[in-house]
């Protein structure tokens, strides 16, 4: 297409659908499914979202639209008693409900604006009165509670926890997290130091491949300062920090106090 399209951020699939309906100035009760579906799919294609979860919500809506579209293309089955239900019906109901809440939330926003102009006063209860604490009658509080009941409550929580584990997906392989070897990194910084003697802290961090490596490098530097093997200088606030390697050898991590 070549035309840069500025995508608005939509809160969810219903939000996008409402926008399309609004943009085309069409009646919500009479959505031209074909047109809307095409535009909808178009938007999804242009969407740059890295979150699978968000994307999948939009895709579900797209699938619903395509489903409605196909059902509308098929001849309605001839039934004597029931009147054929418009496949768009459910969608329209959802859209209307959603639109209502969008409207209400605007009303609430105004109310909040007004209400925020009233100011309250913190409690000024004299200290000796504030210090008074009545005893809570634990016995009365627990009167209906038996150990068995407490146990039952805990069991149902445990069951809920177990339910949450998806037995299918939990058996899938894991994406291995990268392994940054602390000891190796520690030695590596010192080797670099032996070779360069004076070097830039910023450059050192920029040379790291991942966030985890940056963190480990930073920890390594801190440790080397602590054991007096390097010193650091900085000309001005927020300037680059210059590291000077003072030692003539390398210590192993075990000797340091990690």
């Amino acid at each position: 297409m070549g035309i840069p399209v500025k995508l608005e951020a939509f809160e969810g699939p219903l939000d996008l659908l409402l926008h399309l309906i609004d943009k085309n100035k069409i009646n919500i009760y009479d959505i031209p499914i074909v047109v809307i579906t095409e535009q909808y799919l178009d938007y999804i294609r242009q969407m740059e979202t890295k979150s699978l979860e968000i994307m999948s919500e939009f895709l579900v809506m797209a699938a619903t639209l395509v489903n409605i579209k196909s059902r509308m293309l098929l001849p309605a089955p001839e039934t004597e008693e029931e009147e054929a239900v418009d496949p768009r019906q459910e969608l329209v109901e959802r859209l209307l409900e959603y639109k209502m809440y969008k409207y209400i939330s605007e009303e609430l926003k105004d109310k909040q604006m007004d209400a925020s102009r009233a100011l309250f006063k913190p409690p000024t209860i004299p200290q000796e009165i504030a210090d008074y604490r009545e005893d809570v009658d634990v016995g009365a509080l627990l009167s209906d509670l038996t150990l068995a009941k407490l146990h039952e409550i805990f069991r149902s929580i445990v069951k809920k926890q177990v339910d949450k584990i998806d037995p299918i997906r939990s058996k899938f392989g894991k994406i291995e997290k990268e392994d940054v070897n602390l000891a190796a990194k520690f030695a590596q910084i010192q080797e670099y130091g032996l070779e360069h003697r004076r070097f830039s802290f910023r450059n050192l961090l920029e040379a790291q491949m991942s966030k985890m490596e940056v963190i480990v490098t930073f920890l390594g530097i801190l440790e080397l300062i602590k054991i007096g093997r390097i010193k650091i200088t900085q000309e001005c606030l927020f300037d680059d920090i210059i590291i000077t390697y003072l030692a003539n050898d390398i210590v192993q991590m075990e000797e340091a106090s990690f």
Partner: protein
Amino acid sequence: MELKVVEAQIEAILFTMGEAVELERIAGATNQDPETTRKIIHNMMDRYGEEERGIHIIELDGAYQLCTKPQMYEIIIKLTHIPKKHVLTDVLLETLSIIAYKQPITKLQIEQIRGVKSDHAVNKLVEYNLVCELGRMEVPGRPILFGTTEEFLRSFGLQSLDALPIINPEKVEDFKLEAEEEMQLKLDI
């Protein structure tokens, strides 16, 4: 006891406590029955409202609290820095209105209406103390039911949940008409 004395006592109570105080507690402290107390307070509310006063009494779900009248805001900010309340994003407002109208409601039900995951929004609202847990729904999985708090009423200037803006059935009709009027193309399959 003389009415004036009781009124003075109620004023002192509300002033000292600062926060909302339940009718029953006020009644207990002033030795009045709750219904009489309620009448006295409402009488005071009217007077505070009519007179040229800088403060008034508001009602929050059967509790009462003293606060400044909104029109005093401009004068007060000249003197003191007023901490900004949490600015609610559209997402949070939308979620909050669903909870306000449909309470008690589960996260799943909210998500069905919004069409998107709402964990983050619900958690934020709980964090802001606008929404709280009401208990559990007795269905498999026992999901948590959410509802609005007293802080919600206060932040939105509502006496009780009955004071929520009404979703008028006519409004639905309006939306429909609006859409029809604006309609320029009526495409059909």
